[in-house]
């Protein structure tokens, strides 16, 4: 007798746990051949609110970690991704990729995580400055993370877009609520499992599935979201998010490009979601003028 396969239940990821949507709703995305991919959570506004609460709760400890520690954790994500390579390739193929393209996408995604892992403890070295003010002060400027960032993920890819948009944002210490690609959600759900087993504290990355518009409206208007990343090419959605950003002067970050390209990564993807802080400290100016050594 042949063995009966166990079918995976696709759940969302909030605060380090895997609940179903509180709404109890689902949808069935289809692949290119018209085959159903499975029952996927159709997230609600309330899910988005819960995710923001979880993200805010995680922000303090994540942002205060040593940058070096975050870099190690990001590298751990890459290690876990590498171990799950076959699963991601399988899901990409199921969602319509060719085997070769799927392989390339997964490998590029892993390398991109490693790339950003290397950035964590270098961002401030490259972007910070000591400012030669005319008064006797030690004056320096350093970027720090913004807080909770809402991300509408790229809707045209399942994995590489998601990774390219999420990883640089958390690298600096932000926490995120991500709305996955509506029609290509499988890798986002599996990526949540990777995050869950990579020493990333619960709440740093929260991943919701479904039609982006509904939860996005919450992210757009939520007073506890510091910035919104426009990662999809939906003109209508982006326009409404730009508009609602005025409520609390949410930073609006445009992040749309062909993520499969090797150069679709960089320092500015990180600093876009950071704030610059300048510190002044007095310096006495006594003695030493006669020293000639």
């Amino acid at each position: 007798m042949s063995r009966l396969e166990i079918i995976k239940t696709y759940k969302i990821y909030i605060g380090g746990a895997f609940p179903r949507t509180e709404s109890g709703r689902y949808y069935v995305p289809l692949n290119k051949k018209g085959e159903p991919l499975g029952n996927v959570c159709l997230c609600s506004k309330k899910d988005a609110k819960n995710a923001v609460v979880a993200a805010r709760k995680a922000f303090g400890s994540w942002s205060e970690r040593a940058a070096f520690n975050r870099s190690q954790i990001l590298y751990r994500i890459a290690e876990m991704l590498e171990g799950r390579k076959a699963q991601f390739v399988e899901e990409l193929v199921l969602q319509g990729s060719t085997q070769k393209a799927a392989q390339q996408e997964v490998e590029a995604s892993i390398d991109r995580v490693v790339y950003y892992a290397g950035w964590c403890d270098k961002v401030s070295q490259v972007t910070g400055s000591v400012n030669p003010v005319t008064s006797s002060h030690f004056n320096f400027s350093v970027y720090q993370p913004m807080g909770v960032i809402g991300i509408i993920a790229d809707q045209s890819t399942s994995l590489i877009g998601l990774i390219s948009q999420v990883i640089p944002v958390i690298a600096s210490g932000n926490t995120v609520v991500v709305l996955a690609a509506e029609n290509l959600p499988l890798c986002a759900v599996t990526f949540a499992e990777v995050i869950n087993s990579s020493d990333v504290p619960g709440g740093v990355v929260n991943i919701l599935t479904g039609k982006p518009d509904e939860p996005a409206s919450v992210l757009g208007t939520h007073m506890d979201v510091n910035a919104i990343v426009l990662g999809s090419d939906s003109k209508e959605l982006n326009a409404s998010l730009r508009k609602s950003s005025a409520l609390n002067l949410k930073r609006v970050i445009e992040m749309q490009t062909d993520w499969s390209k090797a150069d679709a990564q960089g320092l500015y993807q990180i600093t876009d979601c950071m704030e610059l802080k300048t510190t002044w400290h007095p310096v006495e100016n006594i003695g030493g003028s006669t020293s000639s050594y």
Partner: protein
Amino acid sequence: MAKNKKTEGIEWNYSSSLEGTSHIQLQKKYDLFIGGKFVKPHSGKYFDTINPATGEVLAAIAQADETDVDKAVKAARKAYNEIWKNMSGKERGKYLFRIARLIQDRAREFAVIETLDAGKTIRESRDVDVPLVANHFFYYAGWADKLEYAFPNRKVESLGVAGQIIPWNFPLLMAAWKIAPALACGNTVVLKPAETTPLTALKLAELIRDAGLPDGVVNIVTGYGDTGEAIVRHEDVDKVAFTGSTPVGKRIHEIAMEMGKKCTLELGGKSANIILDDAPIDQAVEGIVNGIFFNQGHVCCAGSRLFVQENVADIVVRKLKDRMQSLIVGNPLDKNTDIGAINSEKQLKTIHQYIQLGVEEGAELYQPECRVPANGFYCRPTLFTNVAQSSRIAQEEIFGPVLTIQTFRTVDEVIQKANNSPYGLAAGVWSDKGSRLFNLTSKLNAGVVWGNTYNRFDPSSPFGGFKESGYGREGGLHGLSAYLK
């Protein structure tokens, strides 16, 4: 408690807490690591490396001569031309990440071997040296594909083959400081560890081989000063990096200048540790102890010249003596030990000569009455008061647990005294007031200045000296420039 025979003085009631050595793997004999393989030395000669805590022989180490060095440089050149030069930064970085991870996996083994071979306490090798080594590789791994960000408006290029010579005080850490940035920038290396502490570098060679690094990218040749000189003089070595004493550094500089090689030097120091009268005294005393007795004082940036503001000198000296009384000198493998073994008999002799000299110069000697093991090389923590600025023990690098104390009245005076040295590696300042502290940090001529802390190191923080303490920086973004055109 573990009784140490033939000891004197006060007994401390600690049970011994020895780190196990059963999990380490050491061979009886180590060959040279050239072109990805361990090969026998051309001369067939080997020398012993010993455990300075006991005097027992740990292993026989191959002695490389000019022929071996030439072979190593050729292997490095071949790897550079055929593979490493053209490899993308991303892939180079991935190798370095791998090395970092393997070091983390085997951290305890490396720590124990470092302690056996160098005499430093297990607490230090376990909690300071080896974690810093892994972090250093991890940090520079991330730079390999980001070099264009480090030097805007400049087309960066690797140099070629780097010859690197490292000292015995931080054997593995210095190897990491040399190898990681060199590889991240696309160079290949020939590294010579110190003759008294070659083991962890050779274990690193094994680990590098296990990491699958292409053959010849890292070559490790062991030997004495003549082996080092052969590396420096080799026609096909493009860059020389040296950490060690100032006299040897000057010779290397001379050869490098003559032959038109790029060079960086991290040399000796006689660093000032300055206690202002508003400093938190107890913290400062801990800082003084850490500054001079860390790693038995075998630290190029050791805070070996203590300057205390006159109005708090009495209390600082009293508290310092009390604190010194509680330091435990003994078996480095014991987790209770604060001060381990002096690295070699030769170094112990040098330290004793300086202590004798201090007494002859009229300074007042203080050593706590602590017990010292009968075998091996040990030195009690030592303090000199009544020291003149011109005294040799206040001017020359001793490289041992010997501290000189001078006092000062004004900030101007201490800046003059502190800067009056041919060296300029590091300095420490202790004050409760940030504005006073930054005044001194900006006026002291030293490559690293610690405020209300001492002997802190981090892969992201550049390290290196002014004046005769050498030139070039290791660590941080600036550490990359030593290995780029």
